[in-house]
């Protein structure tokens, strides 16, 4: 046992090496940029760490930030495993949020009765997730049956979702309260809410659920027939076809599950955190989710770690800006650099003289599909 265990541990550490060095390098370059624009990088990063981990409240907020990142990161990672590039997490998230907000505030009125939580909450969550799943499955179906590339179609679906959401939140779904000045829905009913874990802190059960879903995604991909089929289609669609896998249906299903996971990110923000949907809260989640999936090497547990790191940076960034006047946008630059170094690990391997890895992620198979 001892020998095998040591070998596994060595493999694990080896696979963590490049992402860790990528993070460190990005943070160093970020520090240089901060110094160039006249800030003190050490003070800035101290503020960042304090804001992210310095107190119970800071930890709670980091978890709150990390929660949608976990769901959306898992969504992108699962699609990657199936050989699909889902840039549409943002749109799927928005659709999930809009649908669950609608069910959350309007359903009791439609039925002229108040609902017990064990009926209302599952409906709110379930229909929101379904919305995200459909939003993801549409580009999947287009890819499967017409060859329309999912990269462009998911992005178009983002803009369509954004337009529809803007229309709904400025029109039919806008909170009719005369004191309301922004594009947001009314608050959802108490029976559709997921409670916080500790009184006084915002961290909620949606975070715990995200961890469980990560385990579920790992189980789905590694231990089930469906997961095997998804991975086979991702690795080699032609071989999958010869092996008797229904590749078209598999693509639609993969994008549907991916969309459901991204939709979950929006649903949880509505049911567990904001208790309403507001315009513009989801901007940028889609691209962040891609970075998280790549940093986590498409491994569900890696995604959780990457999501917590990104959540900590976003959360701590606010305190950093408050303490040092360095714009919080520097976080986006650092995150882009992390993605750059993870994607082009040859750069990191060159800088730190590490032997080249075996696997290389290849997604691009031209536009024909």
């Amino acid at each position: 046992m001892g020998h095998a265990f040591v070998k596994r541990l060595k493999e694990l550490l080896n696979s963590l090496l490049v992402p860790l060095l990528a993070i460190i390098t990005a943070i160093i370059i970020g520090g240089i940029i901060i110094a160039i624009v006249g800030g003190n990088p050490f003070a800035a990063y101290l503020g960042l760490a304090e804001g992210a981990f310095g107190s119970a409240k800071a930890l709670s907020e980091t978890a709150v930030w990390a929660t949608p990142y976990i769901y959306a990161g898992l969504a992108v990672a699962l699609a990657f495993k199936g050989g699909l590039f889902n840039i549409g997490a943002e749109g799927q998230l928005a659709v999930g949020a809009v649908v669950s907000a609608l069910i959350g505030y309007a359903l009791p009125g439609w039925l002229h009765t108040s609902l017990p939580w064990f009926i209302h909450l599952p409906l709110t969550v379930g229909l929101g997730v379904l919305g995200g799943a459909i939003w993801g499955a549409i580009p999947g179906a287009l890819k499967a049956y017409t060859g329309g590339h999912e990269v462009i179609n998911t992005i178009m679906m983002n803009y369509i979702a954004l337009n529809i959401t803007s229309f709904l939140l400025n029109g039919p779904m806008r909170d009719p309260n005369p004191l309301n000045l922004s594009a947001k829905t009314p608050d959802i009913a108490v029976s559709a809410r997921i409670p916080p874990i500790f009184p006084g802190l915002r961290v909620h059960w949606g975070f715990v659920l995200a961890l469980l879903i990560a385990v579920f995604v790992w189980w789905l991909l590694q231990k089930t027939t469906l997961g095997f089929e998804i991975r086979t289609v991702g690795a080699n669609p032609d071989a999958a076809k010869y092996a008797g896998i229904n590749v078209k249906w598999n693509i639609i299903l993969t994008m549907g599950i991916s969309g459901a996971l991204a939709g979950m990110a929006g649903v949880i923000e509505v049911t567990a955190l904001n208790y309403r949907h507001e315009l513009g809260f989801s901007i940028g989640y889609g691209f962040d989710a891609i970075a998280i999936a790549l940093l986590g090497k498409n491994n569900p547990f890696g995604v959780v770690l990457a999501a917590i790191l990104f959540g900590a940076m976003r959360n701590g960034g606010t305190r950093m800006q408050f303490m040092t006047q360095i714009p919080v946008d520097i976080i986006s630059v650092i995150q882009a650099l992390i993605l750059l170094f993870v994607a082009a690990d040859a750069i990191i391997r060159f800088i730190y003289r590490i032997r080249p890895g075996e696997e290389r992620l290849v997604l691009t198979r031209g536009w024909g599909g």
Partner: protein
Amino acid sequence: MDWRRFAIIVFVIAIMFATVVMVGSSQNSPLLIITSMLATTIAVATPLTLGALSGLYCERSGVVNIGIEGMMLGAAFFGWLAAIYMNTIFHMAPIVSLIVGVFVAMLSGGLFALLHAALSITFKVDQIIGGTVINILAIGITGFLNRQMFFGAGSVFGGQIPHAPGVLPRIAIPLLSKIPTIGRIFEQQPITWAALILVVVTHFVIFKTRWGLRTRAVGEHPRAADTVGINVYRMRYLNVIIGGMLAGLGGGFLTLESISSFEPLMTNGRGFIALAALIFGNWTPFGAWSAALVFGAAQALQINLQFFRELIPPSLAILQNSYVVGLAPYILTMLILTGLIGRTIPPAADGQAYEK
């Protein structure tokens, strides 16, 4: 560019023009409306045309570029920043500042492209991921610098955005622009004229020159091209950088020609729509340009319908909603990509890294 595609393009544009003519005919003459629509269409199509030409050079040489959006955004910001610096700090004349801005925009587009080329050609990163890196990096850098430069501690502009030196002036074609009513079409701003000229130039370069032949060779069959002594890496690098400069010019359109301000995320999907135009145009300059015109017309439709808002009959009330009309370009893009109008054939080695 086959006749079927051409017919679809003419048909779709005609429907959009007819809608506006129908709605606005009680107030303006059809000729005036069509002229106004056409002038808007050509102008709005400019960044899409340049974005599509950018993609054309990259993909004809075998490099998929989904980073056009980021290249445009970065160029829009740096071009605008350069123009403001020239005008406010160095007290240059507005027109000189704007011209410097255009060159800086092209330069920064070229630099982003250099990064994309290094990632996809030298480091052999998956090209779609490489493009995504460009997009995220551009959003981060422009967002950070926009706030730091103008509102950050020690900002040279003292906490406010200074007056930009306006936009590039219109250039009228002699005689043609003097024609009553429709003369307006022949008064466009310089980047718009440049885009039209570049469509013709690109067609000539890609299909009639030795450079174009070599570019297409490395995009179709790099191994064969290598065998006959063409430097595959060099051709790909140069074409991707040319592409980046064109995307940069498209970004310059947004902040130096269209409006004189910068907003985070202002490219708003234009880079991706340009890619769809390229695919619809079957990787040809004229095809891509005509597809860009369809998107331009969709946006002209939205703008003009807002203008005639009050005149829209109740039966077409849905057109009063700018969010609904705003969906048109995105849905069009998806319909186009579904191959509704026939399959398109990308360069054979598009998206594949070349290993010597």
